[in-house]
Each structure stands twice: as C-alpha cells, then as structure tokens.
C-alpha cells in the first residue's frame, strides 16, 4: 500500500514541476527571441547593402560585392540566414550575385571543410549550402556523406546532390538505398529526377543493379523523366524481373512513357494469376498509356472479382476517349454483368459530376 504521506508529497510536487517546466519553456523562448533580435540588429547596417546588391544591374554589383564580402565574421553570421533563404527565392542576376558573394567570402571551401565536422548540424548545414550554391566540386564529398551516421545529414546530402551532382553521383545515390545507412527511396528518386537529362545514361545503368530497390528507383526515374528510349528495357523488367516492386514500378513507368511497346507487357501484367498490386497498377497504366486497343481488355476487367482492379479499369476507360466511354456505357447497360455495370455506372456518374472527361491522344498501335 502507498503511504498517504507519499501521495500528499507527490501532489504538492506536481504543480511545482509544472511551474518549473513552464518557466523553462518561457525562458528558452525569451533567450531565442533575444538572440534573434541581436542577430537582426547586427545584420541591419548591411541589410540595405544586400538588397541593393540583389536589385543592382550586373555592372553595378562589383563594389557592393566587395563591401559585403568584407564584413566582419559576426555580421556575416547574422546575415547568413537571410542569404541562405534568399538563394532559394531569387533567380537571375540576383542569384548569381549571391553565389558570387558566397565565393568571395570563401564559403564553399568552408562548407566543404565543415562536411567533416563532428557536429551533425554543421555537416548538414554545409551540405545544404553546397547544394544551394550548385557547387559541383563538392560532389565527391557529398557522395561520402550519403553514408553519414546521421540520417538527417544523409537526407540533406541527397537533396544537395540533386542540385549540384552529376553522372558521378548516380551510382552512389542508388547504393544509398540499401545497407545499414540508407536514404529513403522517394528522396533518392527526387534527387535523380532533378539532376535532369545529363544523368539519364547512368540512371539507365541502374536497371541492371543487383538490388531490387535500386532497379525500382531507376525505373521510376526513367518513367518520370520520360526516357522513351528505355521503353523496351522497362518492358523486359515488367515481364521478367523477380521482384514485384520492380514490376509494379515498371508498369507505372510504361503507362507514363506512353509508347506502343508498353501495351502487350501491360496487358500480360493485368491477367488473372499475376500479383494483385501489379494488376491494379497495370490496369491504371493502361489508361495512362492511352491505347484504344486496350479498350476490350479493360472492359473485361470491369467484371474482375477484385473491386480495385475493376475500379481501376473503369477509370482507365474514362481516359481512353470516345471508345472508352462507349465501352463504359455498354457495360453500364448490363452487357457484362451486374458488378461490371455497377463499376461502369459509378465511373460515368463521377465523370458527369466532375463535368469533364480526360481525353488522351490515341496512340497508333
């Protein structure tokens, strides 16, 4: 049994504890605000100079750049949050001037050195700055950071490579998808997509990667960036890859690429007996593909025992234009049975409510 004195003591201590915690939170906020104001005061005298630089014509920037690059360390530290934020928000001559200012200040070299700092926050900030400055020379150092012990730092390095990396980074990014220190696949995908056409060949090499996740990401990137020249390899992955994840990504990519070679592998992928998730994605991809010759197969799928497949087929038919609509009306009339009629009717009602029909260009097959 708990002694009554203990309960009384605990009840008395509780308000004191709450009060102490509240005071701690308030004082913490106060200190932060004071620090923020101090930083703003310190940056204030040169803030006008910075705005002048951002609005100046190219031939007027030189003197302003020199004056800003010469500010003392404390003022620079106070000004830096604004500089970093503005790098994301301005373009053209203003952005070029900011990058030049960082260079004059020796910031890229400092950031490269900071990538080896013991502090994770410092490594992350350095990677962010290098990415924002699109500092290509930092690419190898940023690639090393993909195996950093801190997951946040790995993430920042991935984003930075998306801005500043080239073909050399692709293999490192694909490697970062597996092992003990990984980067989430969506972040790697986004980085590879933002690297643009320059890295397409290296990404395509990822189709042969031994790790399924790397192959899946490579396929997704090729689909999103519209690399139609790789359609046949992606179609092969859909037919033959041992990993379901890879096959699902391949089905989606073929739909996005919209090439005729994608049709048959997609028709095969939606057949009964294939994994359910693949059948659902494949059915949706047939709608994306926009091939009217898929109409009959999609109409059959309206009566599929799985309602997700049937629903995806109805939505895909909506996207096939007049042929798809005709098939939906036919099914809604009950030609293909009760469940097909229900799916078709629901899709047509939905389209009528939305008041629009997605009309896709019909692919000549």
């Amino acid at each position, binding site marked *: 049994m708990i002694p009554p004195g203990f309960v009384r003591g605990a009840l008395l201590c509780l308000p004191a504890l709450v009060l102490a915690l509240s005071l701690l939170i308030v004082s913490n906020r106060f200190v932060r605000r004071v620090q923020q104001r101090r930083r703003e005061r310190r940056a204030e005298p040169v803030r006008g100079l910075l*705005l002048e630089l*951002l*609005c100046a014509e190219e031939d007027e920037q030189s003197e302003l750049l020199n004056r800003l690059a010469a500010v003392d360390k404390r003022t620079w530290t106070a000004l830096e949050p604004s500089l970093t934020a503005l790098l*994301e928000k301005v373009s053209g001559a203003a952005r070029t001037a900011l990058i030049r200012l960082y260079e004059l200040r020796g910031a890229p070299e400092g950031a490269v050195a900071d990538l080896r700092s013991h502090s994770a926050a410092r490594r992350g900030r350095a990677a962010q700055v290098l990415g924002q400055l699109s500092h290509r020379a930092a690419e190898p150092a940023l690639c090393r950071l993909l195996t950093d012990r801190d997951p946040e730092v790995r993430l920042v390095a991935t984003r930075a490579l998306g801005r500043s990396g080239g073909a050399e980074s692709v293999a490192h990014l694909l490697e970062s998808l597996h092992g003990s220190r990984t980067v989430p696949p969506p972040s790697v995908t986004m980085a590879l997509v933002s690297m643009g056409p320059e890295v397409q060949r290296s990404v395509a090499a990822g189709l042969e990667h031994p790790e399924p996740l790397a192959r899946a990401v490579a396929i997704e990137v090729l689909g999103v960036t519209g690399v139609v020249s790789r359609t046949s390899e992606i179609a092969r992955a859909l037919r033959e890859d041992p990993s379901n994840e890879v096959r699902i990504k391949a089905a989606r990519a073929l739909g996005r690429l919209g090439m005729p070679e994608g049709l048959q592998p997609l028709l095969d992928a939606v057949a009964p007996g294939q994994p359910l998730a693949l059948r659902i994605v494949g059915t949706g991809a047939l709608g994306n593909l926009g091939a009217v010759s898929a109409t009959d197969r999609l109409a059959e799928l309206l009566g599929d025992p799985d309602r997700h497949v049937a629903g995806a087929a109805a939505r895909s038919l909506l996207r096939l234009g007049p042929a798809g609509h005709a098939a939906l009306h036919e099914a809604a009339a009950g030609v293909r049975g009760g469940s097909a009629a229900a799916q078709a009717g629901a899709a047509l009602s939905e389209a009528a409510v939305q008041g629009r029909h997605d009309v896709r260009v019909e692919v000549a097959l």
Partner: protein
Amino acid sequence: MARVLVADDDADIRDLVAFKLTQSGHEVTAVEDGMAALKAAREQPVDLALLDIRMPGMSGLDVCRELRAAAETATLPVIMITARSQEGDVEVGFAAGADDYIIKPFSPRELSSRVTAVLSRAER
C-alpha cells in the same frame, strides 16, 4: 509613380520587393499578413496589390476575394506571389480574381517589369 501594397509574411521577400519597387519610383506600403493588407487597402487607396498566396491567418487568396467583393477595391490590380512547389495555386489565384502572378524564385528585374505591365494595363 504608383502606390503599391506588398503583403508577405517572409521578411526577406517583403523587404526585397519593397526595396525594388521603391527603387523603381513607387510608393510602397509593406505589411506581413492578410488582415493588415486588407486594412491598409481599405484605409488608403493603392494602385496595385502584391500578395503572397500563403500567409498565416488570412491568405492572399482570401484578401483578393475580399478586395474584389468591395466596390471601392473591386478593380484594384492584384499580383499573386507563389512558390514553384505550389504552382497549383496559380489557377485558384486567377479564379479569386488575380491579374497576374509571380513564381518564386523570381528576379527583382522581372518583378519590376510585371508590376509596370499590370499597372499600364490598368491605366488603359
């Protein structure tokens, strides 16, 4: 010279826009939220409003709708500012009655040209 109202909760962008437009010869009133923008537009007539779409509390879209609903500000030219990742807002912005939009990142020079273009359209 025109009187321009700038509303953006981001101090860096607000100061930059105000600086550039002042440099271009305009008279600028800069505020940090939608409510203040609406109040400023009602208290003192302006020739153009530059509104950030995403502001805490009252968004730029809400401000635009309110301006359009009031007789004295119904024809006030409005330019929306939005981030590239929120480009879907552009369509909604036009539906709310905006005359033009600027997507971040933007160049101060482009901003000034857009303002001049919208002002001259409004004068015609």
